[in-house]
């Protein structure tokens, strides 16, 4: 009797997985990713030339070799340093420009169109100017990252500062708050949700700027090694480097996103966040 029940049980579990694929979105997502990687693995061994594309397994195999090279670690940390510095400058600059512009109706009306005008210039076109002005080292990457990252921060800070209620400002002032106290206790808390929305956009823009400049010209950063590996036909090493960069991007984006969630828990999330572009 038990022998009869056995196949019946497996018959139930096989449709179980299929059924899960059609009901559990997260499970299906993982299956899709595995399927794509599997397809890539098979194609890498059959269709593609191993000199140009490498399957996931050889990328993973190359990862320790790449990460054991102290030059690569140095290059990764240089890129990370450029990203962090550029982001911090974009954050501070964005606050310094955005708060005064956004707090008063008149300054907003006069300065906002100018900022939008500057933002509408496609910045890739002026990348060579940054290299011309700031040199081939980290300074040009940081400057280019800042020029990308600062605009979303400014625009969202302006949007946030506009939501500060005049009654709150007047109340704080009449209770004898100093300018710094008003900034610290009234204006900044009011702006948090849109500020963090701006920071999230600013982070992805900074990543774009720094990595573009890094790929354009690089002496010791990650751009130099991606070029080196692709020119010396070592795709596993280059792919694993790209994986490291992608991980770095994901970690930085996720950090800002987490911070956003924590900072705006007391408000409806992103209620006045202005998403640009």
């Amino acid at each position: 009797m038990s022998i009869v029940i056995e196949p019946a049980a497996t018959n139930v579990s096989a449709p179980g997985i299929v059924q899960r694929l059609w009901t559990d979105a997260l499970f299906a997502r993982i299956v899709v990713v595995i399927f794509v990687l599997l397809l890539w693995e098979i194609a890498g061994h059959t269709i593609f030339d191993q000199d140009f594309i490498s399957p996931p397994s050889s990328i993973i195999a190359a990862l320790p070799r790449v990460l054991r090279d102290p030059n690569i670690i140095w290059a990764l940390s240089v890129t990370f340093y450029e990203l962090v510095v550029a982001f911090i400058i974009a954050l501070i600059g964005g606050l310094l420009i955005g708060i005064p512009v956004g707090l008063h109706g008149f300054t907003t009306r006069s300065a906002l169109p100018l900022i939008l005008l500057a933002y509408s210039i496609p910045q890739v076109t002026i990348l060579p100017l940054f290299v011309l002005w700031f040199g081939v080292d980290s300074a040009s990457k940081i400057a280019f990252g800042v020029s990308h990252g600062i605009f979303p921060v400014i625009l969202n800070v302006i949007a946030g500062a506009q939501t500060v209620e005049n009654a709150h400002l007047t109340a704080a002032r009449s209770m004898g708050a100093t300018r710094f106290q008003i900034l610290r206790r009234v204006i900044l808390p009011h702006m948090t949700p849109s500020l963090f929305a701006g920071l999230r956009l600013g982070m992805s823009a900074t990543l774009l700027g720094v990595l573009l400049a890094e790929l354009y010209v690089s002496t010791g950063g990650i751009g130099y090694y991606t070029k080196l590996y692709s020119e010396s036909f070592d795709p596993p090493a280059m792919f694993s480097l790209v994986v490291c960069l992608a991980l770095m991007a994901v970690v930085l984006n996720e950090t800002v996103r987490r911070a956003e969630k924590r900072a705006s828990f007391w408000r409806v999330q992103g209620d006045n966040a202005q998403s640009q572009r």
Partner: protein
Amino acid sequence: MNGMSSGWQARAIQIGSVAALFLLWDFVGERKLINAILLPAPRAVFWKFVALAQTSALYTHLFVTLMELVLGFLIAAAAGLSLGYFIGRSRYGTMVFEPLLAGVFAVPIVIFLPIFLLFFGIGPSSKIAFGATYAFFPIVLNTIGGISQVDDRYVRVARAMGADDMQMFRRVLLPAALPVIVTGLRIGCIIGFLSIIGSEMIAGIEGLGSQIVRLGEAMNTAEMFAYILFVIFFAIILNTGLSHLQARFAIPGDGR
């Protein structure tokens, strides 16, 4: 809030600061306060531009870049629209695929540029592929968003009245989703253009981007500025033109 009374003052400040910046640039350039290699005088740039517009070099490179843009955009639109339609049509498909696509788009795709160069070479095909990849994501995400946000009642009513798939697509889904889809196409086109220029700059032999870099490396900054201004104008024209087009497409959503 104070009404229109201070409107002209704000406008005056805007025009004034742009004019002041320009005059400062002209002053610095004419007096040669900054090395002309680092910042050429605006008049020199202008005359270079006039001279450039009369040669064929500008148009040859413009043609290469435009060809790359058109092909890349067509690939991205074909892939993005069809994939977005099939994913967006099913609620579950949206739940599975939308986060995956949005997650990939959150990674700056520039880091994959070396792979494109390795695979497609430094000719136009790598730029087409790179531009198409960048343009694909806004198009597919907006198509999914547009199709999946169509009010369920419309779909159910149309089904109840016996609409087949084609009629459903033609009469219900498309008109309701079109404004969002067209926005995606516009964003995709702009992003595609910029990423093509960017990839031409990083590794290219022809096209506007590579020309900017070549002139910069030859320290011929006045001509480089002329090219940069041309690309900026072109991008602005592209953007405003597409915005107008988008505004026209927004209307069918209202026509019942």
